[in-house]
């Protein structure tokens, strides 16, 4: 469909949903409810489109006979097998749970565990490359938090107070500024979409 239709749809729907935040009137509220319900359905379809695209890309690689298409075979086979098994038995059947508990969770947990080694390595390398007052503050704060996290339940008198102060004052100040900044950016971007300046959906 042409851009003006899409733009009009985005603006119209967006305005109705946005107004619902400020004017909780009956008709507007019902219309808003309908629109967000349909958005949920569309979001689910969009997920399926993404997964199909993933599938198609790897099937194309297999057909094209790429050098490293072994991994594409792995992905396509595992995807197909999971869809068949989980689709047949249901998402919470014991077979599905077995796959989830013994394959997916261990792999994801292991990836997260790997991160622990990588993080220590990266922060050491960061100190080798870049040493300024900000990186020193960053590292000292991180090390202090790590040490006190292990001991904070043992009530070290001064350290626990300092830790508390860092978390509840310094980090809160920085985090609040970051949050406000994020939201301001989101509002600016959203307004650009709602007035039609930005059209990420065209093309």
């Amino acid at each position: 469909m042409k851009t003006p239709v899409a733009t009009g749809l985005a603006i119209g729907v967006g305005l109705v949903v946005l107004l619902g935040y400020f004017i909780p009137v009956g008709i507007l509220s019902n219309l808003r409810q309908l629109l967000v319900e349909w958005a949920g359905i569309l979001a689910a379809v969009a997920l399926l489109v993404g997964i199909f695209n993933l599938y198609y890309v790897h099937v194309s690689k297999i057909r094209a006979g790429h050098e490293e298409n072994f991994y594409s075979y792995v992905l396509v086979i595992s995807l197909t097998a999971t869809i068949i098994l989980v689709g047949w038995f249901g998402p919470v059947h014991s077979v599905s749970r077995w796959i989830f508990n013994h394959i997916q969770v261990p792999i994801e947990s292991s990836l997260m565990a790997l991160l622990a080694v990588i993080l220590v390595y990266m922060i050491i390398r960061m100190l080798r490359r870049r040493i300024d007052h900000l990186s020193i503050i960053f590292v000292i704060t991180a090390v202090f938090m790590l040490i006190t996290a292990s001991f904070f339940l043992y009530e070290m008198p001064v350290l626990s107070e300092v830790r508390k102060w860092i978390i509840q004052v310094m980090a809160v100040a920085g985090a609040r500024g970051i949050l406000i900044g994020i939201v301001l950016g989101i509002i600016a971007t959203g307004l650009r979409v709602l007035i039609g300046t930005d059209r990420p959906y065209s093309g």
Partner: protein
Amino acid sequence: MSLVELGWLDLIGAVLGFVFTLLIFSYIIADNPLFRFTIFLFIGISSGFVTIIVIYNVLLPRLVVPLISGNQGQQLLGLIPLALSVLLLMKISPRTAHWGNSAMAYLVGVGAATAIGGGLLGTLFPQMGALINLFDVSGIQQIGGNLIISLINAVIILLGTIATLAFFHFGIRSKGNQTGLQQGWIENLSQLGRIFIAVTFGVLFAGVFSAALIALVERLSFLVDFIKPLVTLIVTM
């Protein structure tokens, strides 16, 4: 639960978990085909789960069932999301992708509106109100905290928040011979903001590392629990 108490299916599962954990940890030595095999396997399985959950939990009950077994009003209304879904499905093919622009526009419009409304009412106003309320003396006294320390902390929080914002939103770096366009006091404020951000990121880093460390402890605990009975068995033999 030890290995002995597991059924054979769970035992196979435990073996698989053990193997996959070792394959992932092999990345520490170097990137290798087995690691990549595991990653691709994981992507395939998780994508499969997502597909089924989306179809079973969303599309069937909310799109298909109302069209089939709903009343007339529900069926008529259900045609609209059906039409939009069909349009969105056209995004699969490059030739028909432009037909899905309207459906994408719908999603984008709703997303933008919820982001704006939620951001304004849920974060911006309450957080700015919180900054102001930090200086509410009666509130501090009600809590029973030390007034002076609370006010000092309030000043620090206010200053830190503004300084952080100053760094993100007013930072214009000077290039070459051009001097920065900032006024002096904003430049100083943004420098102060950097310090607060460095502290915040230090706390964030510690948090991320803590989460990763617990995962490492859990995985190593699993490996130890898996190997221990085998080692015990071998030793006793």
